[in-house]
């Protein structure tokens, strides 16, 4: 039986793991906040999307479409396509959290987004805290990311157009995401999937960015299914890999 203290420590570890990455999202959140402040509709309505929608690309797309006079249905549909990848993340996390109670799974679903999904997979594959304790790590990540994201968007709305536009801060989030991709290069499946995604983006130059995530996800799934792994699949309940067996072992720790 694990103690509350160790659960808290695990949550803190999750929060620490994601804190540096969450800081990289601040410029993006502030930029979306600035876009919301320029929209003719309620700023509170725009801000509420920070904690509830928690998807920067979809949020910005919806805000921009509504500001430019698009129909509400079209904006919602665009958001749906951009977020279609969340279904796959949900399935991926089910392998780690499938045994949890329904309300715990609902909360895990609430905190699901690209970075929490990727970091959770990396952490649990390299040093699994155990089936009953994974949720604390995930909640720690979620609370820190959601808090920083919502606060930064609120600041963006308050500061509005006063934000300097050309200081290159938007590159921080881009470089952070590139770092996350680089981190997963130690895993063959992830490396191949990242290359497939990049190839799809280059090949589909004419495809709207709205549809790109769904197209990339479909192609990556097709490639993954068509290319069976020669390595044994790591099961959630399996023993953690021995340190040094995988580059991810070291890298998941080094992100802290």
């Amino acid at each position, binding site marked *: 039986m694990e103690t509350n203290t160790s659960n808290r420590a695990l949550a803190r570890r999750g929060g620490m793991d994601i804190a*540096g990455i969450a800081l*990289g999202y601040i410029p993006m959140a502030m930029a979306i906040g600035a876009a919301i402040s320029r929209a003719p509709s*309620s700023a509170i*309505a725009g801000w509420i*999307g920070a904690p509830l*929608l928690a998807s920067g690309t*979809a949020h910005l797309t919806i805000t921009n479409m*509504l500001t430019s006079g698009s129909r509400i249905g079209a*904006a*919602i549909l665009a*958001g749906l396509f951009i*977020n279609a*990848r*969340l*279904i*796959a*993340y*949900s*399935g*991926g*996390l*089910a*392998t780690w*959290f*499938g045994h949890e109670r329904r309300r715990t*799974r*609902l909360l895990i*679903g*609430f905190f699901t987004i*690209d970075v929490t*999904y990727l970091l959770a*997979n990396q952490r649990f594959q390299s040093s699994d805290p155990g089936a009953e304790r994974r949720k604390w790590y995930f909640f720690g990540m979620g609370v820190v990311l959601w808090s920083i994201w919502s606060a930064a968007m609120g600041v963006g709305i308050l500061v509005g157009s006063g934000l300097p536009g050309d200081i*290159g801060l938007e*590159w921080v989030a881009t*470089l*952070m*995401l*590139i*770092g*996350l*991709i*680089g981190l997963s290069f130690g895993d063959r*499946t992830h490396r191949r*999937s990242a290359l497939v*995604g990049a190839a*799809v*983006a*280059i090949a589909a*130059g004419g495809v709207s*960015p709205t549809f*790109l*995530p769904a*197209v990339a*996800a479909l192609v*990556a*799934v097709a490639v993954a*299914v068509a290319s069976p792994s020669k390595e044994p*699949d790591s099961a959630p309940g399996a023993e953690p890999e021995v340190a040094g067996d995988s580059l991810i072992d*070291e890298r998941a720790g080094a*992100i802290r």
Partner: protein
Amino acid sequence: MWFAIIASAGIAFTMRISLLLLAGGRELHPSVDRALAAVGPAVIAAMLTSSLLRANDGQRADIGQLLAVGIALGVVVKTGNVLFGTAAGLTALVVAGWLGSAGL
């Protein structure tokens, strides 16, 4: 705006919990596991590549920006530290911008 955000958030939440609730507790076939694991890196890489292709108001990223991306990626792969990679990439961006403005 209220309706669009609340409706989108509801749809997103439904997608987030869909398989967590439906597949929860069941053993997924290894090929399904593999397919699901492939989605995250592919989507992020696609969005990043797309943003690099439209980095400067719809124009492709310039040499300095691509160099910064390459340096950030290289540092992360070598050191395994995202923050080091970001710092290296930002430094490369600043240097490239400075060299560019100096006409070099």
